[in-house]
């Protein structure tokens, strides 16, 4: 009997220890992860943070901007992510890329429903869905890619696209003057960071940043699909 208690407790402690060990071996803590690229600036100590300079510049614009503009931008970004997710499901070669497509579709459809609900509550009218030149170019580039080339391009686009989205929402966070919108942003940001982390991990971006050998995207049998 005592053996039973000891076994259950040992199992629980074991799980906790393995979890902590696994997370300590991840490239870096997600909240403090140095990220390079568009929308990100470098600190004097060589570390970088999510769009600090960009945040400062955008904050003034967003202060003045209507809540509707933010919701509209987020709505467009959600639609873009849903399209890209569908592409990943159809064209992705690696099972993980296909599943990332599924995660993106589900999360961004869920987020978009909330955005549309908020817009309705606030009496904001969403403009017609138009892809920017940048978005269209990305979609065309992915449409033309095949196999491993698609996977690589898709993951890189996801990482850079989510960096931009994180920078946009971080700059708007707490400063829209609307509690509901601020609350929604606070819940949505961590999900975008999850998407960024997964894309960066799978694309090997993190490994490159840490000057480690680039890892190939893991391949799994399609039978593992959910």
């Amino acid at each position, binding site marked *: *009997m*005592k053996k*039973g*208690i000891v076994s*259950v407790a040992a*199992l*629980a402690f074991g*799980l*906790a220890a*393995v*979890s*902590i060990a*696994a*997370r300590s071996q*991840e490239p870096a803590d*997600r909240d403090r992860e140095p990220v390079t690229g568009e929308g990100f600036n470098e600190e004097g100590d060589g570390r970088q943070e999510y769009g600090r300079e960009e945040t400062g510049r955008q904050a003034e614009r967003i202060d003045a901007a209507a809540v509707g503009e933010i919701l509209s931008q987020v709505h467009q970004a959600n639609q873009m992510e849903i399209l890209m997710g569908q592409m990943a499901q159809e064209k992705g070669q690696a*099972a*993980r890329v296909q*599943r*990332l497509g*599924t*995660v993106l579709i*589900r*999360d961004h*459809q*869920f987020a978009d*429903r909330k955005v549309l609900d908020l817009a309705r509550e606030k009496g904001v009218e969403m403009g017609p869905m138009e892809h920017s030149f940048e978005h269209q170019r990305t979609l065309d580039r992915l449409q033309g890619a095949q196999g491993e080339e698609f996977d690589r391009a898709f993951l890189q686009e996801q990482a850079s696209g989510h960096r931009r989205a994180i920078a946009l929402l971080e700059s708007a966070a707490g400063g829209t003057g609307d509690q509901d919108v601020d609350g929604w942003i606070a*819940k949505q940001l*961590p*999900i975008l960071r*999850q998407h960024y*982390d*997964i894309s960066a*991990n*799978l694309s090997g971006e993190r490994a490159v940043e840490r000057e480690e050998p680039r890892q190939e995207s893991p391949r*799994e049998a399609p039978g*593992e*699909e*959910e």
Partner: protein
Amino acid sequence: MAYETGTQTQTHPRGVYAPQTGGVVEGGVRVGLFAGLVMAAFWIIAWGATGLGPMTPFKAVAAMFGVNAMVGGWGTVIVGALIHFIVSALFGVVFASMIRANASKSQAFWGGLVYGVGVWAVMTYIGLPIFDSVMRERVALLPGTWFLAHLIFGACLYATPRMKRDASRRAVARTERERVEVAVRR
């Protein structure tokens, strides 16, 4: 009717039980697994209905080992479900150690609901922030569902006293059988 448990004999109108550790652990694990199963079924239905994916909670549980679990396959789902059931069993054992074996169903039900709220608080403010930030961020999207899932877990613990008594009876029967076998061998 009474049983010799080796150290003490106990009788009760609801049956014979022995307040031994075997009843707490075996009964607690059984009731914890049962409550965890019902909770898992609720999760699958609720998360599926929101469009976030029926298996997402289990992947999020498995994400305690890394965020890439969110794009894992069925293996990841099984790992997440196993962790969920281990934690459920653990909380079942703790509840079984707190409630008397002769408590009524309604006492266990209301006690279980309160306990469920306690488990929700422990998981929300201590467990997830320390061990699984991915899950914490995911459940923040559906806070009502997360809370309700723990109420359901707590409500299912109504069966704890009976499971404790049954486990004790089995333990007593095992002891009795072993004693007879030893006597026969002699």
